[in-house]
């Protein structure tokens, strides 16, 4: 998905911030002892990973992807994503028609293959 997009953003970018954002960032630089660049980078990186996680969780909620797919979208390992699902109260969704009646078929298969 992301690989199909033609990137326009360069590695360095100038942007205009509101007075209140500048104030807040100045305070955060003072408070965290990080440099301005480090702090801004970490804020952007956090926003990117939050966005990816949200997108992955929405896809799982809709039932449109598997856990591996979603973990890939979120940029997390399978286990880390599984834990995030539980943390966020997200439950695995199946297609009802896929699992209804499966037990009887399974039992027949097991009895045949014993």
């Amino acid at each position: 998905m992301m690989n199909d997009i033609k990137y326009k953003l360069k590695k360095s970018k100038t942007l205009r911030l509101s007075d209140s954002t500048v104030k807040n960032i100045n305070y955060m630089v003072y408070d965290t002892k990080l440099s301005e660049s480090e702090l801004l980078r970490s804020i952007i990186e956090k926003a990117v990973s939050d966005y990816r996680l949200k997108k992955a969780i929405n896809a799982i909620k809709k039932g449109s992807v598997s856990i591996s797919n979603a973990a890939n979208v979120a940029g997390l390992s399978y286990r880390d994503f599984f834990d995030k699902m539980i943390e966020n109260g997200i439950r695995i969704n199946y297609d009802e028609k896929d699992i209804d009646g499966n037990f009887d078929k399974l039992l027949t298969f097991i009895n045949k293959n014993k």
Partner: protein
Amino acid sequence: MVKTVISNKPKIVIDASFWINVVYLDIESYLLKYFDIYFVQKVESEILNESEHKIYNTRDMDVYSKLKDIRLIKIREPKNIPKKLLDNLQYDSGELYCIALGIEDNMIVATDDKGPISFCKINNIPFMTSIDYILYLYNTKELTKKRCLILFNMLNKNISKKFIEIGKKYFK
């Protein structure tokens, strides 16, 4: 002389979602009793979370390692991956290798994940969810109805309620 032990138990290949859920319910020991258990390497790394962020071990990681150490868990890789699997499932994922092995060796695919379940259903590959597994243990008289209902409720933490209801309807 080398003695070969041939198991007459049905073979299952387990994916990470099923393993995590079943160990969480503390019913994994019955798997050993009723099935010949296989994992693929990729699922092992998904379970053991071989990522840079790993900071702790969960119970299912420990149980997995212990069973592997005493050779009750076997690792096997599929010889090839059918194209229809590559077209439908996540590239280089546990589910992909798991189903490929299931097809190759006529195994039951044990999974709680939607993508693999749908693929198995469409392609007539036998599969077992943790809900099916609980029902199987009821069927073999390992679990009482009361215990099954408790387990279904516990499973509701990870699986949508409407699917738990499908399991519960077997008791009605």
